[in-house]
């Protein structure tokens, strides 16, 4: 029988240490909505989303209440729209119409975000892919809940540098149309099909008709546990993180199974991610400091993060029957007060963040850069991050937010879970000529495993 100590421990994690389930994400395949007529396609998409996700929000609230665990977001991910819309949308404007239809459906069912306004172009772009990518600035500016992602590379295929070049321009243009838009746009290498986290969630073509994916959180809980190991060795530190990650993930597994049963939708995966929020005490950077760093970004940060990421996975894997998605520690800047403080104090630079992305999920995330950063420099940063993912056979992503009219040190407000970010310095030297080269970077040698 459960005892008082255990009940109090769980309730303290929830009440004082910000333990929550970050998201229940319902993946919906839109492949059966395909039509050659744009209006019919839009109607089909709206009808399918509002039918399948009708009870998502109410079921989420029910589970929150019964188990006493907050579920912060209820979201939807859909099949990449460049595939769904290929037969009906022949111009960027046609794709924007689909985005508007997705936005209406998301609002109708009451979810926080809908992801999947996406294109998978790691080896090349179809006409539809190209049109979708070109439509992203308008699609994001005219919708409020739609999130977009573009997968431009993979370990199997290499990196599509034409897409990388294009994305530099698209990110810049998106920021100019609406300051919040780049926060809803991710560029990926090795994007997973079952990621529940925004802005990069989409329902991959390997998925079934509908699927429940759950993302857990809990930096505050891990931080508190790590604080108890002050002065102890690495063995004790690792054991503590593992045990804590196990407990956190079990909550995710429970919520995923309950949601799956109540919605009659198969359970997909639990994503074992430490996802911070701007709330005080809910920070991944604070965990690194608790391990013994003065600030995130100090020498030792990459090692500390590697240890953290690995132990979270080791503890989490046993707690869930299916693990997937991004699974690791997130290191966004604007969404993590400890990261913001580290940048402001001059401890954390873009280059150090890049090094950190080699050992954790996902990548350069929610980083504000000066508004006058050139498109080719943005592409260069994307290419670097994609190369890390390609060579290390891991997911990497870039979510850079150019801040129009702002320069280094100024602060950009995104609001809510997206937080605020100090504008970070970008290396001023040019990569224009490199980025202008046409074609793709070939797959790395270790991709030839057959």
């Amino acid at each position: 029988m459960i005892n008082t100590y255990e009940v109090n421990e769980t309730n303290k994690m929830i009440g004082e240490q910000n333990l929550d389930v970050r998201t229940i994400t319902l993946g919906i395949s839109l492949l059966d909505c395909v039509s050659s007529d744009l209006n019919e396609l839009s109607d089909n998409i709206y009808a399918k989303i509002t039918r399948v996700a009708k009870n998502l929000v109410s079921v989420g609230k029910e589970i929150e209440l019964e188990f006493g665990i907050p579920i912060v977001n209820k979201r939807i991910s859909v099949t990449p729209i460049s595939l769904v819309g290929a037969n009906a949308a022949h111009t960027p404007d046609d794709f924007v119409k689909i985005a508007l239809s997705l936005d209406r459906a998301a609002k109708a069912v009451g979810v926080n975000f809908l992801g999947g306004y996406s294109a998978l172009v790691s080896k090349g772009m179809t006409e539809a892919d190209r049109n979708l990518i070109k439509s992203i600035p308008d699609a994001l500016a005219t919708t409020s809940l739609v999130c977009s992602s573009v997968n431009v590379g993979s370990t199997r295929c290499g990196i599509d540098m034409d897409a990388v070049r294009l994305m530099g321009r698209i990110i810049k243009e998106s920021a100019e149309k609406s300051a919040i838009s780049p926060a809803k746009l991710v560029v990926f290498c090795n994007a997973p099909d079952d990621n529940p986290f925004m802005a990069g969630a989409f329902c991959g073509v390997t998925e079934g008709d509908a699927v429940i994916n759950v993302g857990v959180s809990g930096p505050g809980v891990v931080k508190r546990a790590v604080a108890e190991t002050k002065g102890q060795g690495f063995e004790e530190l690792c054991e503590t993180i593992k045990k804590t990650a196990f407990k956190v993930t079990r909550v995710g597994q429970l919520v995923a199974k309950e949601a799956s049963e109540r919605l009659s939708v198969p359970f997909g995966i639990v994503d074992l991610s430490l996802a911070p929020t701007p709330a005080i005490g809910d920070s991944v950077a604070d965990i690194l400091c608790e391990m013994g760093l003065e600030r995130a970004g100090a020498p030792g940060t990459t090692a500390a993060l590697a240890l953290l990421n690995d132990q979270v996975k080791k503890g989490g894997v046993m707690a869930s029957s299916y693990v997937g998605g991004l699974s690791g520690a997130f290191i966004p800047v604007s969404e993590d007060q400890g990261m913001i403080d580290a940048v402001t104090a001059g401890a954390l630079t873009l280059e150090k963040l890049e090094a950190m992305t080699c050992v954790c999920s996902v990548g350069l995330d929610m980083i504000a850069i000066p508004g006058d950063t050139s498109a080719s420099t943005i592409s260069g940063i994307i290419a670097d991050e994609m190369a890390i993912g390609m060579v290390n056979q891991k997911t990497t992503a870039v979510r850079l937010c150019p801040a129009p009219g702002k320069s280094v040190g100024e602060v950009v407000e995104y609001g809510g879970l997206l937080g605020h970010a100090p504008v970070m310095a970008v290396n001023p030297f040019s990569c224009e000529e490199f980025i202008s080269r046409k074609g793709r970077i070939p797959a790395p040698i270790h991709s030839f495993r057959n």
Partner: protein
Amino acid sequence: MKKTIITVVGKDAVGIIAKVCTYLANNRINILDISQTIVNGYFNMMMVVDMNESAKPFADVSNELVQIGEEIGVVIHCQREEIFESMHRI
């Protein structure tokens, strides 16, 4: 049988258990186990209950218990047992 855990935490006062138990009895909620301590004047109680006979939906019971807690100055949580089982048992 789906069990529910009710926790009551707050400054000790006369009649906390009586008030909570009366509510449970009136709603045909059976108490399976109670453990209770008072440390430095702070009251801490955990109950395991069976709500299967109760006509009220879980949400109503939970909300009404929270309300009773507010009336008598304690914090009452009402949660399905599975969240604790899954977190603390392999």
